[in-house]
């Protein structure tokens, strides 16, 4: 499904625009809300679900659908978790494969069978949806995100499969970066906590990365010329920068600055 023969360029561009608009989202939860809200406009009148699974598919973390359906589904998360194994795609052991291509429910089970399925009896009865497309855009560290597009009376065609794939791929890119960002932010939090118990307040916020590099060079007794070369600046610019750092930290002279930075390594025996 690598070439999208059925989607018009206008439709593709519209999806692109929408997804680009979501690039400023910072958490998965926010993305979830935005995605359902925005794509509801692209695929109106059908129920689009965002399923946020735990990695082993035993638990549904969040579940969200377009506004019209939200009320009908309130409080069904637990039930969903219990009956999810009856989902035809998961039962067929093909859930992993949905990350490569969009799967159509009616290819696995016909409508009559699906009605007898506990999943339908418990869940989809409330949505009144009998046809479904399933696609898993991404597997993250502790969760998988799957999209399903449900419809009441009409089965899906090739074009709709392509649209969901197209949407999902972009969603995968975004959520991958969000996850990455979250992990980095978490690491950064830990590191700045580590620094702030060992240094005066605000040291970590007042030193941009380049200045931290500069000071690291100084502490390693490298020559100013070598440090300046590394940072790509002239050595008198380096002196100027050092002056600016001192100013910002409220130090009177270079020795105070060195002492303050030395403090960072000093507390190594703080526990003993």
């Amino acid at each position, binding site marked *: 499904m*690598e*070439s*999208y*023969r059925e*989607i018009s*360029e206008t*439709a*593709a561009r519209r999806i*692109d625009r929408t*997804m*680009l608009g979501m*690039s400023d989202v910072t958490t998965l939860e926010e993305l979830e809300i935005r995605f359902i809200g925005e794509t509801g406009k692209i695929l109106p009148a059908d129920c689009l679900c965002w399923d946020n699974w735990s990695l082993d598919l035993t638990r549904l973390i969040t579940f969200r659908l377009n506004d019209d359906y939200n009320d009908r589904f309130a409080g069904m998360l637990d039930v969903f978790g219990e009956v999810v194994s009856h989902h035809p795609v998961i039962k067929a052991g093909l859930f992993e494969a949905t990350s490569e291509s969009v799967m159509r429910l009616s290819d696995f089970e016909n409508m009559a069978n699906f009605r007898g399925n506990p999943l339908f009896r418990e869940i989809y009865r409330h949505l009144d949806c009998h046809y479904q497309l399933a696609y898993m855009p991404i597997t993250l560290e502790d969760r998988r995100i799957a999209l399903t597009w449900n419809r009441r009376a009409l089965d899906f065609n090739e074009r709709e499969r392509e649209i969901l794939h*197209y949407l999902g*791929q*972009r969603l995968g*890119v*975004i959520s991958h*970066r*969000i*996850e*990455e*960002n979250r*992990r*980095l932010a*978490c*690491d*950064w939090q*830990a*590191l700045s906590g*580590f*620094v702030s118990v060992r240094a005066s307040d605000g040291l*970590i916020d007042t030193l*941009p*990365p*380049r200045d*931290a*590099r500069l*000071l*690291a060079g*100084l*502490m*390693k007794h490298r020559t100013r010329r070598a440090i300046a070369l590394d940072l790509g600046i002239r050595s008198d610019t380096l002196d100027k920068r050092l002056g600016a750092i001192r100013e910002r930290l409220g*130090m009177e*002279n*270079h*020795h*105070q600055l*060195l*002492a303050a*930075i*030395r*403090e*960072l*390594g*000093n*507390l*190594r*025996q*703080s526990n*003993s």
Partner: protein
Amino acid sequence: MKAAERMTQPGGFLVQLDDVLQLKSARLAEKLQAWAELLDAVGWCVALTPPGASLWLSEGATRDLQSRGKLPVNSAELMGILNQLPLTARHLECDGVQIWASSQTEAPSPLSTAKLTIRETEVLNWLRHGKTSPEISIILGCSTRTVETHVNNLYRKLGVKGRSKIILHHPKPRD
């Protein structure tokens, strides 16, 4: 441009979208790296595992792990090695950052062995605060020349030359 082409084309929309998104994490990653280097420079062993990249060890960490025998290639191996360290040496452990104290006991600084007079200790203390000789002379109520004599004696006793060296090599002991 057909939608089909959009997908396969290099520099197409997916790449463009990804570029926009990765800016933020690139900035964070740079900050992390820079601070890791700074912490390394003041004597910690730091290891970073940025998401989607391989393990990065600071110079001190590489030296420390080499002295233990082997260099880990991924963070799982590193955790295996770190788990054998005493808890007091492990200072920070989370998913992507590990900070621990080097095992090599530093050469006992001459500070502990050198016999300093009371006055010299006071001068040393103020030197660490970055005070200049005239300032110290005012604080201690003696002349600048006397302070300089003390400082010269300190240089001799501690075996260093230069005030910044004193600060770098003889950090203030914890109280």
